[in-house]
């Protein structure tokens, strides 16, 4: 066991020696692999954040009913009771125009604009949830409310959550497809790098075989070489994705705040990071394996 370990360490040492013998080559290879892996990894990062966002956001579709600006509180109360009694309506929440004003003033960017206006620009509003929240039923309810007097505008909220859901499913498929595609690309990159390596070290391969080396012995340093390249590329990809997450965090938070949502963009979590590095190393090993199998068969 100790001997076995010593021989593997020896192969790792040899692989590292070869990697550091051509630093520019190694660096460029790592970059190529890193960029290839960063695409699906970045997609997974965005997807993870979007999933988190969708989870923390109420997925219950709502209808917002806005009163006309000139409607007084009495009319609003009338509409409220009418909404409350309406078949299919589950809950009605009143949002007074004063509350809306206070809430909007909390936003420092908007405050100056609002204070420049002569009066309260916001109308009274209701947030309505339905007993049956299928899109068709919701659409019907909204259409009905639009007919009512002094109702200025009816909006189906949270329809976007459904869209987001569908979008996320699509996103997951896209990330998987991208992962498979670029995973195959990674194998191809490692394949040709190892082929070059095998040609560079063909004297060593030939001599080793003449001295009684098994295919396993001949392969070993090359497999570690491919594995280390893959792993290094995975680390590069991880760094790229983390840097992108940090860089996008502030502007994206700004953007989603406009939709009344909060999002702090996070890099890859521990599980995804582990998967990334594991896959990168595994694919590097696989690429090297395929390359050497072909090389040794020819030789």
């Amino acid at each position, binding site marked *: 066991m*100790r*001997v076995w370990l*010593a*021989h593997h360490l*020896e192969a790792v040492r040899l692989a590292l020696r070869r990697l550091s013998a051509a630093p520019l080559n190694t660096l460029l290879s790592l970059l190529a692999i890193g960029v290839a892996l960063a695409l699906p990894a970045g997609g997974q990062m965005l997807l993870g954040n979007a999933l988190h966002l969708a989870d923390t956001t109420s997925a219950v579709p709502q209808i917002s009913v806005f009163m006309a600006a000139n409607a007084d509180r009495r009319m609003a109360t009338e509409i409220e009771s009418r909404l409350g009694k309406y078949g299919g309506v589950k809950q009605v929440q009143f949002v007074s125009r004063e509350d809306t004003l206070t809430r909007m003033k909390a936003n420092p960017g908007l405050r100056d604009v609002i204070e420049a206006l002569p009066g309260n620009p916001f109308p009274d509003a209701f947030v309505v949830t339905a007993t049956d929240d299928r899109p068709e039923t919701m659409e019907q309810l909204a259409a009905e409310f639009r007919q009512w007097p002094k109702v200025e505008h009816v909006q189906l909220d949270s329809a976007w959550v459904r869209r987001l859901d569908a979008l996320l499913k699509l996103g997951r498929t896209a990330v998987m497809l991208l992962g498979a595609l670029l995973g195959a690309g990674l194998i191809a990159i490692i394949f040709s790098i190892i082929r070059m390596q095998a040609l560079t070290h063909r*004297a*060593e391969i*030939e*001599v*080793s*075989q*003449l*001295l*009684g*080396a*098994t*295919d396993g*012995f001949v392969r070993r340093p090359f497999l570690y070489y491919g594995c280390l390249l893959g792993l290094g590329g995975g680390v590069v990809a991880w760094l790229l994705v983390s840097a992108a997450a940090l860089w996008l965090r502030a502007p994206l938070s700004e953007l989603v705040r406009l939709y009344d949502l909060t999002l702090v963009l996070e890099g890859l979590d521990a599980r995804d990071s582990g998967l990334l590095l594991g896959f990168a190393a595994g694919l590097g090993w696989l690429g090297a394996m395929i390359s050497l199998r072909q090389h040794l068969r020819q030789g």
Partner: protein
Amino acid sequence: MIRFDRVSKRYPPGVDALSDLSFEVAEREMVVVGGHSGAGKSTLLKLIAAVETATRGTVLVGGQNVSGLARSALPYLRRRIGMVFQDQKLLLDRNAFENVMLPLSIAGFPPREAAQRVRAALDKVGLASREKALPVMLSGGEQQRLAIARAVVNRPSMLLADEPTAHLDNETAADVARIFHEFHDVGVTVLIATYAGDLFPGARRLQLDHGKLVP
């Protein structure tokens, strides 16, 4: 130990390197294979280590039919044979110590014991002080001796050497010949392909002429 039975070797374009060759080498015997350039000496040694395969006939090594050996069995045959190649085949990017270490790494020796053996082998051929030297830093004779150290470090029961004294002055050649005699004395079967048969006075000779054995 080694037995050739009506062995022929034809290289692809149609060169008959060996034809209808039959002979036997007993265990612990020392044999010198002579003959002109192109007579087939190297080919004969390569057939024993299964570097080349016979076109016809059978080559038996230790009772094993070498030509019929599966690819996966070749490494184990070669580990029992120490071979000094005509072109030496030293690894130019590894120092003397690492070159001699290679057969032991291949055979899976524990590193510490292996290092001791490497030093012993280098000492045996008089290169103990040059273990850090790359092959290009060694003279022709030193390279020959390094190749011998690599061939014997595994303590094989059979030693095949192809022109181990070529390009050496008389004194160095005699030195190298002495090393082979020493291995023969401790029971190793030794086959040497060489023009300089006089260096190995006690050895049996096999004389080749255009791939045929001269009686």
